[in-house]
Structures are given as structure tokens and as C-alpha cells.
């Protein structure tokens, strides 16, 4: 079996895909802890769709898809973090609009593209095997930067997310830490979306942290479990997709969601 795995990962495209899956997926899974705890899961669903629209626009304008992914992610965060303040529509309404608009417009823009690219659809179907070296390196850099920022400012992120009002009364800039969290989320989504599409990005953002939060009630255990589940499910999903000739991104996303079942059973038994 080891020999088979070695052979499988002797291909550079598999190593690049694995790198994005493990680093990008692990990072998104970690950020997903905050998405769950802050109860902004719908925002987590809408952001990949807006990022997809950014990628489609970039392809349409003959720009690198990564540029579109980053700009799409950042614009999406800016729009969604300020939505709902006008009071004309609840925040969930804006998030729903962004989800529907981003997802549908991305396909329309791509269809209207004057330079049809045979590989363009991989960003939407989640064909992670098309990942190249620079995309893999970008995912590693974003994951490393995110880890460093959170390691250095952990208490700020937790306190400002847990109780923004208290944070302001302490004289801390809650909006700054909020923006930094969303910035990490934007770059994280861009790094995974650019290679593997929205399905994997959202699967990683939701699945592993949900399983960890079902099992444990202490941050250290939740974080370790989340990141390990994210990385392992990326590896397992990619390997299975290769063996059974399945699409990489969706198989990895399914693998990322699978731990929720044993986690739910574990929670039931523990109670």
C-alpha cells in the first residue's frame, strides 16, 4: 500500500493538489471554527460564490485567476461585513443575495468570455488536479501567514469575536481585529478556490470544525482536531479520487464533511 501511495504521489500534479488540500484546507478548517462560533456560516457559503465571480471576471479580462480570486474574496468580505447596517434588509437577506448573484453571474460571465478557456471550468467544478506549483506555494504562504497572525494575536481574535461590545469598552479596536479575521478568510478562500473551487473551500470551512465542536468543549482540542481532520480528509479525499477516478475537489469536500457523522455519534454516546 505504501508503494502504491508513493507511486500515486510521485506525480507532481498530485503533490501540488495535496499541498493545496492539506495547507489550504487545514487553514480554512481552522478559520471555520470562528465562522461557526460567530454564527456566520451563511456568510461562509456566500463568500466562495463571490470569489468565483472574481475568478470568472479575471478569466474574462485575461488576468490571472488568482488575482480575481483575491479581489473577489476581499470585495465580498467588504460588502458582506457592511451589509445589513442600513436596516432595509436583514444581513441574511444580503448574504443570500450575494450567494445567488455570485454563483449565477460567475457562470454567465464565463459563458460570455471572449477568450473561452477549456480549463476555466475547473475553478467551478473543483478539479484540483489542475493545480500548478505557484498555486501550491501561494496556499502554503497564506496558511503560514494566517497561522503566524493567529498565534501572535490569539487573545485579541477570541476576545473581539466572543464579545465585540466588551472589546470596545476595553479600548481595543474590535473592528480592526474583525477586519483582520475576514482578511485571512478572504485570502484563505482565494488560495483554495483558485485551485479547487467553491465546493472544497466551503466543505473545509464547515465540515472539520463542526465535527471538532461536536466532540470537544475546549479550544486547544477543537483547534488540533479541526486542523488534523482538515488535513487528513484532504489526503484521504485526494487519494480516493485518484483510486476511483472521481473528481478531486468534490471527493475531498465529501471527505471533509464525513467526520461529522462519527462526531455526532461520539457526542450522543458521551452524553
Amino acid at each position, binding site marked *: 500500500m505504501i508503494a502504491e501511495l508513493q507511486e500515486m504521489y510521485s506525480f507532481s500534479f498530485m503533490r501540488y493538489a495535496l499541498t493545496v488540500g492539506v495547507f489550504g484546507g487545514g487553514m480554512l478548517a481552522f478559520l471555520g471554527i470562528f465562522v461557526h462560533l460567530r454564527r456566520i456560516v451563511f456568510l461562509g457559503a456566500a463568500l466562495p460564490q463571490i470569489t468565483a465571480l472574481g475568478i470568472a471576471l479575471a478569466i474574462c479580462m485575461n488576468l490571472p485567476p488568482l488575482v480575481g480570486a483575491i479581489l473577489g474574496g476581499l470585495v465580498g468580505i467588504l460588502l458582506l461585513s457592511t451589509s445589513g447596517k442600513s436596516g432595509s434588509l436583514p444581513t441574511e437577506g444580503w448574504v443570500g443575495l450575494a450567494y445567488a448573484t455570485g454563483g449565477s453571474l460567475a457562470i454567465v460571465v464565463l459563458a460570455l468570455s471572449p477568450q473561452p478557456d477549456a480549463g476555466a471550468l475547473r475553478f467551478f467544478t473543483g478539479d484540483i488536479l489542475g493545480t500548478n506549483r505557484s498555486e501550491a506555494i501561494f496556499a502554503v504562504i497564506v496558511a503560514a501567514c494566517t497561522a503566524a497572525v493567529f498565534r501572535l494575536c490569539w487573545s485579541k481574535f477570541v476576545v473581539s469575536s466572543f*464579545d465585540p461590545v466588551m472589546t470596545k469598552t476595553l479600548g481595543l479596536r474590535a473592528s480592526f481585529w474583525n477586519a483582520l479575521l475576514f482578511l485571512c478568510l478572504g485570502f484563505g478562500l482565494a488560495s483554495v478556490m483558485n485551485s479547487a473551487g467553491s465546493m472544497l473551500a466551503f466543505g473545509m470551512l464547515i465540515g472539520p470544525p463542526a465535527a471538532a465542536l461536536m466532540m470537544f468543549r475546549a479550544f486547544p482540542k477543537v483547534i488540533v482536531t479541526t486542523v488534523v481532520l482538515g488535513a487528513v480528509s484532504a489526503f484521504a479525499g485526494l487519494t480516493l479520487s485518484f483510486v476511483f477516478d472521481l473528481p478531486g475537489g468534490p471527493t475531498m469536500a465529501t471527505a471533509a464533511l464525513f467526520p461529522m457523522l462519527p462526531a455526532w455519534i461520539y457526542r450522543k454516546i458521551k452524553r
Partner: protein
Amino acid sequence: MAGELFQFEKACLGYPGNEVLQDISFHLDAGNFIGIVGPNGVGKSTLVKTMLGLLPLRSGRMTWHQEHARIGYVPQREQIDAIWPMRVRDILQLTLCALHRPHWYKRGEYAQVSEVMEATEITALADQTLDTLSGGEMQRLLLARALVVEPSVLLLDEPTAAMDLFASERFMQLITKLHRERNVTIVMATHDLQALVGRAGTVGILANGMLHYGPTVDMLSAERLTNVYGHPVGVHSKDGKLFISIEGDA
């Protein structure tokens, strides 16, 4: 701790297009315990939010006289999401870490945290997670969180709301003890008039967009409360203590 701590001068408080409180002039001396009362929707939370700096003044002036005056805010426990996977001790340590450099979280004992947990009677709960706390325990944790930053003043927004009688009394006894032993300045918005008797030195009554304040015994008169609440309120004295009751059907 002595002298003037806070002041409103001809301040108008509220939201764009909706001035809730007009022409408020009020000062708070260090070491005071002031209770803010009034009917629903009269502006208690608006006053607290403005003092916290969460709402801008519509007009007038607000001054914190102590430089870098730190406010300890105790919200209603419903504002806290117990889904967060944190222990009681973690909340206090993280709050402390967030204020000081470096900002990362170091495991281990923090003398300040232990001391505050003891003062707020939650030492036995240190390793419990948020979702296992009762309402009264959660409120004491929020009080401890406010105290751990060594505040100049404690602002409490209806801290005993939705608490049972015993939990509410225990919490008020704790507040009284902290006020007496630590000389902490306290501003408490509450519906519970009786809880203020014998505890708050000053009571501020919000009514018709105005704030009237003075010594507790003077402010909690039957006539004044009846006018404010629009219903007969009885105030009786027994063994030197005031008792407030609703007269007739509410």
C-alpha cells in the same frame, strides 16, 4: 480614589432622528454607587451605551475626568454565546492577555485571575465550560471578567434581569461587597428598585427624556415613583429599611 470621575453637560443622547434623553447634566464621583431606574424604553440602555462610548452624543459634552479611565462592563448574560468552547478561567485569562503584550495566550496561573475568581465566588467553577453554567454563575463570571481589567468604574446593564430571586440577591450582595471592600464606582441600570435600597447611595430616575437624580432615600418616594411609572407605588419603612410595592392591580 476620590473626586469627580465622570460628567455629562447638557447632553442629548439617542440615535439619528431619535433623541431619547435631552439636556442631561449629571456627574459621578469616584466611589459612588448609582442606580439608574425607569420604565421600559425610557433610555437606560442608551445612557449606558453612551457612557461606554458605543453611541455618540447627539449634542452636549461627556467627560471622563481620569485619564485612561478603564470601564468594566457587565452586560446581561443573554448577550453572551455559551457555544464558545472556553472554560471560566480561559475567559478571564484571555481578557487579560488581550490587554497586554504579548497577546498570545499562555497557559498557567495568573494571580489576578485567581484573586478575581475568589472575590466573585467562582473559584469552584474555574474549569467549567460556559454551557454548563447557570444564569447566576454566568452573571458572576461576567462580573469577574469586568473586574479582572482593574476598572475605574463598573457599568452594569440590568445584570439581574431574568434571574431567580436567590441568584439575584446573591449577585446584589456580591456587588455590595465589592463596592464596600474595593471602593469600586458602580453605575447600575436596573428594573429592580428594591435591590438598590440600602446599597446605592444615589438613584437616577429616567422619565420623559429627562434624568433626575439624588440620594436614594429622597428619590424613591411613593409620589415620585407613582408619577414616573403611572401607577400607584407604595414605599414603606420598616426597621429603618424601605420596602417598595405596587399598590392595587398592576
